């Protein structure tokens, strides 16, 4: 049964230096508050896993938490490049960042394999691209039934997956709806999991299109209202597109980024 914890305690107990950590949420329900808590607690040498390492991983990378990134698309959606990610790749600032690069289809299937208890996933993908030349974790495989050559990618098994959802009940059963991305697979693929939610309620009212993660499949739940901002929680908030646009200027230079981090992550945590 999931334990109900504070965000600080959840991160302190579940996210450790050197871990393989997946923070998922496909544009919607991105666990920003948990990412900020990881920065505040000074986690180091993380392997960060995420299909779309957008602004949240730009912040973790710029803060120096990451050693390695496993991903399929690293940009600021609809705005442009991630400057902290680029600075790390092009200039090793604040430290070198190793990359393991995939496509979305490959990453999604890697989580499915992890959630399914399989060593790898099979897909029609990557063929003819330069990705297999640089990513050792993309291999051809022959179908034993048809002889056709397909592509295999290994299962993802994060040490810990962190996601954000709309609601949980007091037993830690989690309910999410709207665009639910790859969160279910990422949670079930992980050894440990932390779910932040907008609110904890006595009873989960059914919602069309909902995904339920039973409390017994989750390690811990923390109530963090607004914990997805500047991403959003369908039914609770809307995407703060102005923040995503403004991030381009904030993140472009190291000093403006550091000032932002200090004010909005470190000092915000001290005030809380």
């Amino acid at each position, binding site marked *: 049964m999931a334990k109900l914890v504070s965000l600080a305690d959840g991160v302190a107990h579940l996210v450790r230096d050197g871990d393989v950590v997946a923070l998922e949420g*496909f*544009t*919607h329900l991105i666990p920003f508050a948990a990412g900020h808590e990881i920065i505040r607690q000074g986690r180091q040498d993380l392997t960060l896993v995420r*299909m*779309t390492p957008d602004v949240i991983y730009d912040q973790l990378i710029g803060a120096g938490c990451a050693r390695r990134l496993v*991903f*399929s*698309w*690293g*940009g600021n*959606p*609809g*705005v442009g*490049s*991630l400057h902290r*990610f*680029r600075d790390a*790749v*092009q200039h090793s600032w604040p430290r070198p960042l190793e990359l393991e*690069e*995939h*496509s*979305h*289809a490959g990453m*999604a*299937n890697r*989580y*499915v394999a992890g959630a399914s208890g399989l060593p790898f996933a099979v*897909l*029609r*993908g*990557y*063929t*003819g*691209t*330069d*990705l297999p030349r*640089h990513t050792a974790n993309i291999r051809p495989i022959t179908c034993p039934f048809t002889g*056709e*050559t397909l592509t295999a990618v290994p299962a993802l098994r994060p040490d810990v997956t962190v996601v954000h959802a709309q609601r949980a009940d007091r037993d830690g059963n989690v309910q999410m709806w*709207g*665009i*639910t*991305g*790859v969160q*279910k*697979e990422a949670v079930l693929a992980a050894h440990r999991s932390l779910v932040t939610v907008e609110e904890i309620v006595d009873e989960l009212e059914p919602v069309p*299109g909902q*995904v339920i993660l039973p409390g017994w499949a989750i390690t811990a739940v923390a109530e963090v209202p607004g914990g997805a901002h500047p991403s*959003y929680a*369908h039914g609770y908030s*809307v*995407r*703060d*597109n*102005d923040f*995503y*646009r403004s991030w381009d200027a904030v993140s472009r230079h190291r000093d403006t980024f550091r000032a932002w981090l200090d004010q909005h992550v470190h000092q915000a945590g001290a005030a809380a």
Partner: protein
Amino acid sequence: MAGWTADEMMTVAAARQLRDGIACFVGIGLPSTAANLARATHAPNLVLIYESGCLGAKPDRLPLSIGDGVLADTADAVVSVPEVFNYWLQPGRIDVGFLGAAQLDRYGNINTTVVGGDYDAPKVRLPGAGGAPEIAASCGEVVVIVRQDLRTFTERVDFVTSVGYGSGPGDRERLGLRGGGPRVVITDLGVLEPDPVTCELTLTRLHPGVTREQARAATGWDLAVAEGLTTGEPPTARELAVLRALEATKSDGRRP
């Protein structure tokens, strides 16, 4: 002075490529703008599919990201990300893939990964693949929308993120790619289509006011020009009005 910009002409020309009733896998940015313009004009039954899992989205304003709430609110179905790639894209259920590019070569291969230097020490690190490799492989056909200049239209792409025709005729079949590949490339100068024999992108249409010399000068290879080169129709008043109204909604991602 024409009463429209080159970008507007490009978006209108791209929208015209989308037939009513087909299913279209839409990337964010120019493809999303063009697909929504098509749906608001000649193709009201165009099925928009976003990789966030929104099938049949009918946004009344342009989303900034592929996961804005308006896409989920208006979709026929919202499915998981593994499902959109495995059940919908991979089996070939989607007619058209609509892609942008940072670099494009004469065989329609696309780079959105790294430019310059080598992979481990690139001059410019771009966002990477996202859904594009499998969109380019598995959709019935691909429409590319991209501004035409020497930096983008290169003899060879620095990295093949998404395969067009590889190194020429027969490559897609050899690789086992089941979709048809790039059918048309829409730029701010005109329209390029693959030669039916050589698969090489060939200039087949110019936008009004553009010369073939301009298009060739903006291309990093010796751009072939079709014998029957034509000039396209300028944007209609309605196309422009709808496009500008859509663009005006982009500044506000919030609910009306």
